[in-house]
């Protein structure tokens, strides 16, 4: 053991020598260049070919090239023959012969030029390749110059042994998982060193934050979460069903990976935030700190910053590994034929993208109509007779709210067909200005219900765009399941509006309630591409970070006046309430105890029940009022559905959760700490 220790010390001294660092740096840069230079060369060749194809298709002779491509499945541009799979022609070309999706056409025409050894997704994006080259070089240089060469080599050896054993046992999945775990763990160590360097300034807030980072990376209480995440992430791909369609695999992976990352980070953040403050108060380390010239708010700010920085490190690792695996996953095999091509197309157009959505616009309900309906309802309810014409305003408001809900619901229904003719209703979208002129198809997502119909049966409906019968598309649907329909981009009018008519082919049976199509508010929407997946992924990670930042503040605030277990309990309760805020708000719509004047107060049981129900409702309302915003930001959900996480959302979440909410909880913690006596009466102990 002593011998090994001596060797380790000698090697450690060796790696710190200047000439060793310089030599290693040169070798690393050379190796990185040797790998990335051919990738970049191929990448730029790909880009050059893509430009020439676009110039040809969009140039004066573009129509001729497109016609040839449509008719023969191939075209010669600049002396090179380019072809597309024939079975994809209906998807790539509109009925008038124009190209529907130029980017997809390009990638199909150039797919033969991508060498098998190089990752296709990397070749299609030269700037991304440069980024990866820079990241790889920086990563290796940091290892060298931060004296981590020896740990790096030891990690490589350890991982190599584990991977070798997995290889001998014939488990390919275990090989990748173990290799991934080794890589992620080492990257974590490296990033912790880097942030430690960044936080090493003399500022007190940075000093406190730096110590939190050390605490997190050396204490079991937080390490267990970090190690859990770093071990789970490389294993997630192997829990995917290889037989499932690619889009499902991608969605499942994004959902599990982002979901697990956020869930584990949230738990770690809350536990660490509660522990770092409450343990310091309990173990009296805070005496040593508060007797130094550190303001209490700066102390709390330092704690918060430390936890946020730790989350940045973890999210960076988790984000990069998730992103890289998604890029690999999108290139994996799909079912043969058209089905597989459409599957891949769906991944590209519906998931690995950033789409905005637009909901149907409904005309406001005239107040006169509402007033008259309320009047009728009051008159028709015999219970209101006792008010002798002076019905309390609370009852009138309740009736009006109920009527609004019913009218809204009616507007979202499509009547069943009669006498062989389909029932129909037209919906208007007027927020599609950004989709005007786009080359990518739009997506109509719908989740329809059909009265009390069998939820396993298939029914038929149709869609007509802009009231043009020629655009009609007939589709089969299963009630309660989401379906999508690609809409040609030219369906959007120049003013950014579009109408969609739903045709209900179900014929009403005499005396049957089945037959009326209806949908929830968010279940009929038009989606259109507004950005790329890479940027969207980054923004989603930032929103996650902002949410975790609030949780850090919450945990710290609770720990300023509660012991560790109680502060954890309190913080987790608030976290859960905040997460389910939107569902709670939705549930509250249906959880309305009767008005107080209708309660039979003489019956103690009924009265007690009413008081209990009102208490629950008020608590739920308060929690929704305060915390609903937290749950409204759902970056994982948006990523899975390919929905745009805009910079506005990032900024909004930052202002709301980071500046206002986190600021408020930290100020609350500061007020508590300012008022609280950090020492206790010790006369009875000593």
């Amino acid at each position: 053991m002593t011998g090994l220790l001596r060797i380790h010390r000698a090697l450690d001294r060796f790696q710190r020598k200047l000439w060793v660092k310089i030599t290693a740096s040169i070798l690393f840069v050379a190796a990185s260049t040797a790998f990335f230079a051919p990738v970049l060369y191929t990448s730029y060749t790909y880009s050059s070919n893509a430009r020439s194809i676009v110039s040809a298709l969009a140039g004066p002779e573009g129509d001729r090239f497109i016609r040839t491509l449509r008719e023969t499945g191939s075209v010669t541009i600049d002396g090179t023959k380019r072809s597309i799979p024939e079975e994809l022609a209906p998807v790539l070309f509109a009925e008038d012969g124009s190209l529907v999706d130029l980017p997809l056409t390009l990638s199909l025409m150039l797919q033969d030029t991508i060498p098998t050894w190089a990752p296709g997704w990397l070749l299609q994006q030269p700037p991304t390749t440069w980024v990866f080259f820079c990241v790889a070089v920086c990563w290796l240089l940091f290892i060298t110059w931060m004296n981590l060469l020896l740990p790096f080599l030891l990690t490589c050896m350890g991982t190599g042994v584990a991977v070798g054993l997995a290889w001998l046992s014939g488990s390919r999945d275990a090989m990748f998982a173990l290799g991934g775990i080794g890589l992620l763990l080492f990257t974590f160590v490296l990033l912790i060193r880097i942030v430690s360097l960044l936080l090493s300034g003399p500022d007190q807030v940075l000093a406190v934050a730096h110590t939190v980072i050390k605490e997190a990376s050396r204490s079991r209480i937080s390490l267990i979460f970090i190690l859990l995440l770093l071990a789970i992430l490389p294993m997630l791909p192997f829990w995917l069903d290889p037989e499932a369609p690619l889009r499902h695999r991608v969605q499942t992976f994004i959902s599990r990976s982002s979901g697990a990352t956020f869930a584990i980070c949230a738990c770690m953040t809350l536990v660490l935030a509660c522990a770092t403050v409450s343990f310091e108060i309990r173990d009296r380390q805070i005496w040593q700190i508060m007797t130094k010239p550190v303001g209490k708010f700066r102390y709390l700010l330092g704690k918060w910053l430390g936890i946020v920085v730790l989350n940045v490190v973890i999210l960076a690792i988790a984000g990069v590994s998730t992103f890289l695996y998604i890029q690999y996953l999108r290139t994996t095999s799909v079912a043969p034929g058209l089905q597989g091509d459409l599957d891949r197309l769906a991944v590209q157009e519906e998931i690995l993208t950033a789409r905005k959505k637009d909901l149907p616009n409904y005309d406001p309900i005239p107040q006169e109509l509402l007033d008259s309906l309320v009047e009728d309802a009051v008159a028709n309810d015999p219970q209101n007779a006792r008010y002798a014409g002076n019905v309390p305003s609370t009852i009138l408001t309740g009736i009006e709210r109920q009527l609004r809900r019913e009218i809204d619901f009616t507007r979202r229904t499509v009547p069943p067909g009669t006498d062989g003719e389909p029932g129909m209703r037209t919906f208007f979208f007027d927020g599609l200005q950004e989709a005007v002129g786009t080359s990518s198809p739009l997506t109509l997502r719908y989740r329809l219900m059909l009265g009390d119909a069998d939820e396993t049966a298939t029914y038929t409906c149709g869609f007509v765009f802009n009231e043009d019968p020629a655009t009609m598309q007939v589709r089969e649907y299963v009630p309660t399941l989401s379906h999508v329909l690609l809409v040609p981009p030219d369906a959007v009018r120049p003013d950014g509006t579009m109408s969609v008519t739903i045709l209900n082919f179900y014929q009403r049976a005499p005396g049957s309630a089945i037959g009326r199509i209806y949908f929830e508010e968010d279940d009929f929407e038009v989606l259109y591409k507004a950005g790329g997946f890479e940027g969207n992924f980054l923004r989603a990670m930032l929103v996650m970070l902002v949410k975790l930042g609030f949780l850090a503040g919450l945990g710290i605030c609770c720990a300023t006046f509660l012991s560790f277990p109680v502060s954890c309990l309190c913080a987790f309760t608030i976290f859960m309430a905040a997460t389910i805020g939107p569902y709670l708000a939705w549930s509250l719509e249906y959880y309305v105890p009767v008005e107080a004047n209708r309660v039979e107060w003489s019956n103690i049981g009924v009265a007690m029940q009413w008081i209990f129900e009102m208490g629950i409702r008020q608590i739920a309302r308060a929690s929704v009022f305060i915390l609903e915003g937290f749950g409204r930001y759902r970056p994982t959900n948006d990523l899975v559905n390919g929905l745009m996480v805009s910079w506005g959302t990032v900024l909004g979440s930052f202002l709301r959760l980071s500046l206002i909410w986190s600021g408020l909880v930290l100020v609350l913690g500061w007020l508590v700490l300012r008022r609280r006596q950090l020492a206790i009466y010790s006369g009875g102990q000593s």
Partner: protein
Amino acid sequence: MVTNTTPPIVEAVGLTKVFKDFWMRTKARAVDHVDFEIRPGEIFGLLGPNGSGKSTTIKMILGLLHKTSGRLAVFGKAPSEVSIKKHIGFLPEESYLYRFLNPLETLDYYGRLFGLDRATRKSRTEELLEMVGLTHVAHRPIGEFSKGMTRRIGIAQALINDPEFLILDEPTSGLDPIGTKQVKDLLLNLKARRKTILLSSHLLADVQDVCDRMVMLYGGMIRVEGTVDDLLEDTNRTVIQVPRLKPGTIQRIEQVLQEEEGVAIERVSQPRQRLEDLFLDIVETARREQVETSGVTDTGHTAEFLRVQEGDELIDTLVSEADVVEPARAHEVVEEPESSEADDMLESLVDVAPEPVSKATEVTSVPDTPEDVDQSMIDDLLGGEQQDNKQDP
């Protein structure tokens, strides 16, 4: 020199602290209308048995507890003022340090809290670690340290900012005699640099050796206050120390005393070597023989930045005088035996408030020890051993 016009570092007037329970009923009146002031450049002792209000007073001075009533100013400001903390160094009764940090990181962290630049932090950290003899374990987590080693880091952190005002709560608790002696040397060095020190201890010999003034607390109230000399001087006794005498010579001296003064010799005995000196000799010998240890190694002198700087010739002189005078006290040829008012009172306090814990036994055992054995040594050894037992069950 300190004059009466110099504003005090700490000023307490009618200072009171009452602890209440959840129902706002009085649980304890820990400090009760206490008046005192600590002047710049002095070492001020806070004495008293357990539960007398020493720690509560210190915690109020540090802003860790809020006073119930009265006035308390530190550097002329409220104790909660953050700006005054940069002048203060604090060593609590126990060293409350992060177990996951090593000594280097710990001192660097506290240096950063004081806003020290990197170069200053580095040099001071190295000097302090050398001073407390922990350079060789600078990279080991503090969680693996013994209590004494942790205590040394605690002392180092209290000095990282070269404080104007140093508050030491039981500074020698958990330290071996080498550490105890070093703390005393350190205090004298700091005193020579006109630093102000508040020393709280129930090890009376420590206080006696270094303090200028002191107060004794009991039941949260001040029982006695004054300079060490004023409080300890016993004008009714005279001690003459000479080389060993024959029995006949002693009889003749007694005759003379009877004739001249009308008094008899109360006690004749041979002085014994101080246990502290014996201990230090043994350790020094072991070090010369290079016996291996994983604990504290040869401790350095007081850190350079804490020592008297060049140009302070006058202070240097004072230090050298202090260095000579202080150890000589035990070997003076003629000295006034210390006694009485303070000792009597302490004994009475101990009698009045017997403590169920072991520390009370330490105090009550004092009269049984030989008079010529250093009291602080016994206290240290007993206290250290008991605390070590507690630390490592």
